[in-house]
């Protein structure tokens, strides 16, 4: 087998060095009842690279990939152009096949990257400190709620109806057996401000509130000013947690930090990472200096070596499971290292100049398409202030429309019916995302197909 360096001769020599009769002698502790004498049945035997490649390529060919069609799907994952340089860098063996930098003297490459990543995320979100990544946006959000509980020593979390329903569900799952209390607000397709329940949330905050969780831009693409809500939270001693699922938006709209957020969590996939059918993605987590010791996840910090040279190490590990065990701030160990590297490389290529340009481009293109689609008879543009994503209200249920569009080889967005199967008042909603990767021809194809389907 091509990945196994030992030859039969090696194995024999090694067994005799060890003083074992045969390989079975090394498995003595395995009980009779569980002892397998031959390869497990029901699975194929080893296969040449050429054939594995052929089989998997055939599977891949059964999927309709974003780059091959007019594509407008978002709702938490976005198709942006990732420069070829990014993939080249993350495939450097020294990055790809390293481990968590537990031996800093021979891991400065990874450590400096993490330090730079933390710095980039902090600035992008407008916060003071960011960690070295979480699994994804949804798990980061849950960790934020738990962190708020530790900081405020309160149990009640108010969840905006504008939060991605999958994120809200993850929080529900993780709190169902704990004594955290969730107050979930219902999403409304209010024209002009869908899912905007900030006033209600502000009104709902009280002395028992640990935190309020809002998403901006929210699931319907709506962009809001969070400052008033932040004030309300702080007045009541609660924390404002802001979720950002399209991180590119922060190149165009005011950062959560600037609007008063205490914790910012986000999905970093948009920068440097592909769609990958949902994973691996990149959980971003940023907060204020004063709360850093309650943060989950790894942190990289600056220090000096024995010669006084600047260097970097993992630090504040007393928060973490491998030191603190059941008292740790989180159980996370493996995070999203390589995705963080990809994010950092892409953001370095962009720089502030490129990021602002990219964001402006996304926004302008979205505005263009929104206005075109809004003119289709029976179609209502529900979201009027947005970044690169907006919600349309169709004259009919959106879910079948999306399927019909796909039959016409147009991937035309996400129906609210798929995200909120039960919720009748949302069934006609369609979330449309527009990035720099959609061409004018794609716009035409989408408009024509939608016209067609609705006709």
């Amino acid at each position, binding site marked *: 087998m091509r*990945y196994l360096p030992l030859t039969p001769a090696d194995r024999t020599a090694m067994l005799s060095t060890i003083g074992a009769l045969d390989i079975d002698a090394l498995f003595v502790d395995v009980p009779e009842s569980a002892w397998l004498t031959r390869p497990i049945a029901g699975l194929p035997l080893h296969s040449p690279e050429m054939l594995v490649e052929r089989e998997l390529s055939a599977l891949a060919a059964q999927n309709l990939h974003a780059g091959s069609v007019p594509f407008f799907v978002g709702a938490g994952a976005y198709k942006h152009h990732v420069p070829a340089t990014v993939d080249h860098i993350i495939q450097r063996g020294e990055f790809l096949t390293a481990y968590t930098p537990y031996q800093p003297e021979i891991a400065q490459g990874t450590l400096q990257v993490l330090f730079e990543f933390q710095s980039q995320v902090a600035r992008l979100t407008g916060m003071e400190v960011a960690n070295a990544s979480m699994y994804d946006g949804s798990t980061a959000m849950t960790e934020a709620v738990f962190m708020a509980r530790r900081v405020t020593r309160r149990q009640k979390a108010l969840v905006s109806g504008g939060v991605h329903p999958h994120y809200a569900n993850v929080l529900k799952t993780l709190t169902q057996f704990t004594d955290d209390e969730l107050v979930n607000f219902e999403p409304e397709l209010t024209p002009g401000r869908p899912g905007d329940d900030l006033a209600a949330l502000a009104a709902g905050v009280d002395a028992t509130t640990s935190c309020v969780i809002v998403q901006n831009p929210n699931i319907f693409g709506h962009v809001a000013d969070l400052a008033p809500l932040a004030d309300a939270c702080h007045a009541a001693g609660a924390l404002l947690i802001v979720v950002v699922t399209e991180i590119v938006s922060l190149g165009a709209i005011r950062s959560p930090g600037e609007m008063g957020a205490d914790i910012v969590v986000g999905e970093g996939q948009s920068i440097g990472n592909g769609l990958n059918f949902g994973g691996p993605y990149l959980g971003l987590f940023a907060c204020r200096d004063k709360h850093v010791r309650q943060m989950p996840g790894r942190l990289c910090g600056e220090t000096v070596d024995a010669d006084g040279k600047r260097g970097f190490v993992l630090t504040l590990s007393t928060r973490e499971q491998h030191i603190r065990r059941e008292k740790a701030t989180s159980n996370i160990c493996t995070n999203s290292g390589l995705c963080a590297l990809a994010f950092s490389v892409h953001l370095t290529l962009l720089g502030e100049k490129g990021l602002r340009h990219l964001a402006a481009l996304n926004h302008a293109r979205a505005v263009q398409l*929104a206005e075109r689609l809004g003119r289709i008879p029976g179609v209502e543009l529900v979201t009027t202030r947005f970044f690169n994503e907006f919600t349309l209200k169709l004259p009919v249920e959106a879910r079948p429309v999306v399927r019909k569009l796909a039959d016409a080889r147009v991937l035309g967005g996400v129906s609210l019916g798929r995200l909120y199967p039960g919720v009748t008042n949302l069934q006609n909603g369609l979330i449309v995302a527009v990035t720099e990767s959609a061409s004018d021809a794609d716009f035409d194809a989408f408009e024509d197909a939608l016209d067609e389907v609705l006709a």
Partner: protein
Amino acid sequence: MTMNMIGRVTRLSGEPAMELPGGVTFTGNKALMLEEPLLFERGGVDRTGVDLPPVPDVSDRLAGLGRSAAIGLPGLSEPETVRHYTRLSRQNYAIDLGIFPLGSCTMKHNPRLNEKMARLPGFADIHPLQPQSTVQGALQLIDTLAHWLKTLTGMPEVAMSPKAGAHGELCGMLAIRAALEARGDARKIVLVPESAHGTNPATAAFCGYAVENIPANARGRVDVDSLLARLGPDVAAVMITNPNTCGLFEPDLVQICDAVHAAGAFVYCDGANFNAIVGRVRPGDLGVDAMHINLHKTFSTPHGGGGPGSGPVVFSAALAPFAPLPFVRKSRDGLELVEEWQAHQSSDHDHSFGRMVAFHGQMGMFVRALAYMMSHGADGLRQVAEDAVLNANYILAGLQDIYTAPFADTGPCMHEALFSDDFLDGTGLTTLDLAKAMIDEGFHPMTMYFPLVVHGAMLIEPTETESKASLDQLIGAMRSIATRMLADPDAFRSSPHLAPRRRLDETAAARKPVLGYRDALDAAA
């Protein structure tokens, strides 16, 4: 953003002073060992490494919420970006450079075929929410991988969405919790052996259990008597690692599982060490109820710098109904991904404890893991376990006459060899010093000070992808280091000497944390 760190900017008039900032050289470089400043010192907010189409001129819809203040994100041209990261990468050790014997981490070869397959547009460029009719190949891949995992473990159900081992533990412990609640049982105690990985107690606590430790016995295994003694109506589950973190197989696991079940509790098995037994033992045959599989360990998906991982969890029949959403099932028109509460009535998941993650799990890792499994096949995977165990025992045999091997007298080890630093008593040197000496020799050190049950633990896991030559060199070097340490301890108190950095001051780092680049901009803010 200034130019320090890469040699003084030359004053074209006047000479650079004779004493050299970098020490031996003006630049601080040492031939191919290159220093690299921070991105924030190199880049500029006016620099970029991308070209983008012009922005169409439309009136914006940001309602006055546009970002006006400076962000402070430095950019670099493409050539500078490539160089920045390439130079940094060279300050890392990696599997591609040599053996990476971190015990408990299963750092094995990452085949490049898997990287190629994961990048096929049909896998890498599909959206988790596009219509299911357009991703049947992806669902097929997930279903096939699930079949492999269930078959290899002998368990009837698997949850694919957990994003890493610890997340898988969470998944398993939530399912147990759901199963208990379903029968109205409020037990909250989880028993965890003291040798367990930190994620086990952390996970239990994370979902509201109370944790109690179970001691290890003199043979490095769970002390069965104390475990059985502690069982009772308040115990919800036992979290046990097999092979355990001492690199030893738990011989009494079947008996333990029976007892735990008899006591109305469940057995969560930490499967991080599955590499030692894959193809030779099916955990299902041992009686466990749930076990996560670190695809990024046993099945070789790369996780450079700390991630990403993937931690699918296999379940016994007792826990299967409580598995999380989403899951893939056959439907009249192909495969269906069941995502929502409402959607799955009448399925065998009607007790699902719900969703753990925004989408469907680590597709990128699934592709790599399946490519790895298909390449090995059932026969190759069995060989993997055998070679992994053979390599570990070869190291044990090669070192145990010098290095203290606390459990060597209890028989062979599994996939990793455990040593303590007792043999260094009197030298004032410890496991840490030995690890740093290995760095100078061109090796990544073993896992240090874990598990906690032995003093100055050194846990060496070579994995099956190391050649005999590689092991011989490691053994030779470690014997040489040990011998020299005993002969001349002082020579080793400040290793490493040849790495890009000497020992780093971790205390200072923690006392006054500097967790990001701060400059004028931040000062202003």
